[in-house]
């Protein structure tokens, strides 16, 4: 830990006492009421810091489940000939044994695994686990509030997420298996209970779970927005908010506008399933029998789904971007480059994310002239994305960079975002998409740009704010091993998929036996599977490090171990309910004064010197 500089020369407590404002917090015997016993403190807590930890640990649980699922289907893809009999004790009837005792994975279950992997990682891990954790932790701490606008709704938000998880988890144990029609749940597989094994009870539970999940997102989002707009401390103007807060704030707005649309679509699916309407179903034969459904449009569902689906990918990535901006700046000991440009590009991305959804449908039979419109807007997204990338790199440039785990992951994020963003530009052209749609090229694209990048953002955040969350540090050596294995391993997994995809290998296929043309990829597929196993092992190492460090990590001895200027580091090391013991600190300057006027850093609570110009305004 030799790279932790401590040149603190400010007496923060005095500054808070003298310049902060008194909200009579202590007159009300705060906290005791619902922190008095274990259950109220750790389970039904209304303290945003505890709720953040609940989101994080639940998210980690789901990450392990989702990750393990991917290993099972990767084994099928990499080693289709090998016996899976050894998995029988865990997967039971989904491993089918032949007379010779050779076990094969049931194809239905392969699809169920792919579906669950996608749903779990996208919604439970990278939405709830990422934005739920850090919005909760950082919004009140960084804007100078005692808690969220409504701590009660905040608690409900977590418990709806939990409930969504319970329902989804239960669906794994159905005798017909969980839903298996892909995380996008296109009809008819989702709209006809008899369409496939997972389409029956599995789909019903999937929808139920997602509706609970949306409720959780909405309750959280209402709170985040209200808190950011109404409860900032004195001096914390919008233009003095850290980029993390900007990102969480805009993310919440996107979520509130797009998730209800998903609910609309899902309700229509449920009506088609349960009441026999034909919103999405048309002229279908099952087992030689014509169904009664006529006149429905499956494409209509795709419009509704992707109106959420595309913004959703930004709901995932924006919080990661915010975290990365903050972590990079702190550990490069330099102000973030182009603060306002960063904010405007978040706004631009958020706006554009609502008018590009049909780029997921170029091959679904939408009018090619309408596609053109979506091509243009899709490609325009590259502009604000490039602005952000440029600014991250310039922030690093010439910095006094600390290569600790948090910052390594932040730098890794930038690398992943560039690699994955570039392939997006290929896919965004509807003509090229004719070849690439639904191939491994798409899988490579979104895993790198969203999956891995968002995970990196989350890891950067966890390593960086772990001291704030638990009063201890995570082990740096393990953190660095975790980083390097994941960084190299992730490229090893997904880079080859671009080639496989360009050759036309479709995604979501159980086996390529009957395709002569694809047989020469079998060794590459083995390589990918082995890389996936290694990367997963590194994540297990991270989980071990996490829990070990909660109880045994190096103890934090000073309030501001990274020398960061934002408000969360002015709270006591193990801050109780209400965050600050006395007054609430008042903010005097923007959040990125690093290396200014010969000072290592200047906390936000330090008044501007005579004639000093506030940062960010240029």
């Amino acid at each position, binding site marked *: 830990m030799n790279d932790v500089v401590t040149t603190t020369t400010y007496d923060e407590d005095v500054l808070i006492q003298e310049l902060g404002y008194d909200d009579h917090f202590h007159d009300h015997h705060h906290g005791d009421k619902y922190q008095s016993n274990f259950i109220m403190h750790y389970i039904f807590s209304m303290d945003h810091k505890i709720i953040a930890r609940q989101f994080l640990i639940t998210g980690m649980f789901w990450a392990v489940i989702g990750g393990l699922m991917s290993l099972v289907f990767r084994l099928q893809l990499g080693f289709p000939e090998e016996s899976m009999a050894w998995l029988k004790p865990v997967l039971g009837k989904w491993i089918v044994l032949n007379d010779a005792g050779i076990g094969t994975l049931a194809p239905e279950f392969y699809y169920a695994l792919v579906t669950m992997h996608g749903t779990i990682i996208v919604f439970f891990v990278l939405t709830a686990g990422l934005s739920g954790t850090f919005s909760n932790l950082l919004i009140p701490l960084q804007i100078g509030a005692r808690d969220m606008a409504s701590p009660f709704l905040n608690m409900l938000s977590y418990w709806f997420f939990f409930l969504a998880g319970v329902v989804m988890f239960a669906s794994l144990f159905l005798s017909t298996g969980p839903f298996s029609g892909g995380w996008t749940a296109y009809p008819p597989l989702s709209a006809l209970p008899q369409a496939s094994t997972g389409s029956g009870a599995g789909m019903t539970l999937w929808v139920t779970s997602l509706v609970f999940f949306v409720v959780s997102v909405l309750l959280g989002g209402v709170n985040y927005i*209200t808190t950011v707009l109404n409860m900032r401390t004195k001096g914390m103007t919008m233009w003095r908010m850290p980029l993390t807060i900007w990102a969480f704030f805009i993310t919440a707005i996107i979520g509130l506008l797009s998730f209800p649309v998903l609910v609309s679509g899902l309700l229509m699916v449920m009506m088609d399933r349960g009441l026999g309407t034909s919103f999405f179903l048309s002229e279908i034969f099952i087992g030689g029998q014509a169904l009664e459904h006529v006149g429905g449009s499956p494409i209509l569902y795709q419009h509704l789904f992707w109106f959420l689906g595309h913004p959703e990918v930004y709901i995932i990535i924006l919080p990661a971007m915010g975290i990365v901006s903050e972590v990079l700046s702190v550990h490069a000991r330099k102000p973030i480059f182009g603060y306002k440009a960063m904010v405007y590009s978040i706004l631009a991305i958020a706006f554009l994310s609502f008018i590009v959804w049909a780029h997921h449908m170029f091959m679904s039979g939408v009018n090619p002239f309408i596609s053109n419109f979506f091509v243009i807007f899709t490609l325009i997204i590259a502009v604000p994305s490039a602005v952000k990338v440029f600014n991250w790199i310039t922030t690093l440039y010439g910095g006094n960079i600390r290569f600790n785990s948090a910052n390594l992951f932040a730098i890794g994020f930038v690398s992943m975002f560039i690699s994955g963003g570039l392939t997006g530009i290929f896919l965004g052209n509807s003509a090229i998409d004719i070849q690439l749609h639904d191939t491994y090229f798409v899988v490579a694209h979104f895993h790198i740009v969203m999956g891995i990048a968002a995970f990196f953002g989350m890891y950067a955040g966890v390593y960086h704010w772990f001291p704030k969350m638990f009063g201890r540090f995570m082990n740096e050596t393990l953190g660095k091993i975790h980083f390097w294995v994941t960084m190299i391993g992730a490229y090893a997994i997904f880079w080859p998929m671009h080639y496989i995809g360009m050759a036309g290998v479709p995604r979501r296929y159980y086996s390529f036996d009957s395709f002569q043309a694809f047989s020469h990829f079998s060794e590459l597929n083995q390589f990918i599977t082995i890389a996936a196993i290694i990367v997963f092992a590194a994540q297990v190492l991270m989980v071990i490090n996490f829990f070990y460090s909660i109880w045994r990590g190096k103890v934090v001895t000073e309030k501001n171990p990274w020398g960061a200027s934002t408000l969360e580091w002015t709270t006591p090391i193990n801050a109780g309910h209400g965050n600050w013991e006395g007054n609430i600190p008042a903010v005097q300057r923007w959040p990125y004064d690093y290396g200014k006027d010969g000072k290592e850093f200047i906390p936000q609570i330090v008044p501007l010197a005579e004639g000093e110009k506030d940062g960010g305004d240029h």
Partner: protein
Amino acid sequence: MNAGAVTEIRNSRSKIHPKQFALLIACASIMMMFAAWTSAYIVRQAAGNWLEFRMPDLFFVSTAVILLSSLSLHSSYISFKRGNEQMYKLLLVTTFILGIAFLVLQYMGWQAMIEIGVPLKTNPSGDFVYMISGAHALHILGGIAVLIVAMLHAFILKFNPTPARKLRFELTLTYWHFVDLLWVYLLLFLTLQG
């Protein structure tokens, strides 16, 4: 009042109360759900095979009723602020009754649709009406639950317009106006577009 609520009022320095603000955001979110349905309606309609029918008149009657209920709740709120206890209670109950009447009329509207030969599953044009008005009715039901709580407050607690109770009333009022206007939008949409 719990500790969180104390903090929140102390810490907020803006004019509009955070809870009121949060409710408005939630309304925007609900609005998105209905906007999705009405957009889907337009897209589906453009694809052809679309049965045209006239919305039963009962839906216009119900609209008048729900508009009246908004009016009575607003008047009740004004009476509450002026300290006119009798009027406040009376109008609150009136609103509740009008709200129930609205739901009954919607139900009769669906019956009327069946009578003119558009039961569920006839054609997506009818199914959209059932779904949209049904989902709206659920939101009214939520509003009625809130009204019941408001009535319990009115008749059990001693009359006393404290800021906390005024706020609670304002929240109820905002939501009720919202679901009312939402229906007006939906009806206009379904009549003009259908």
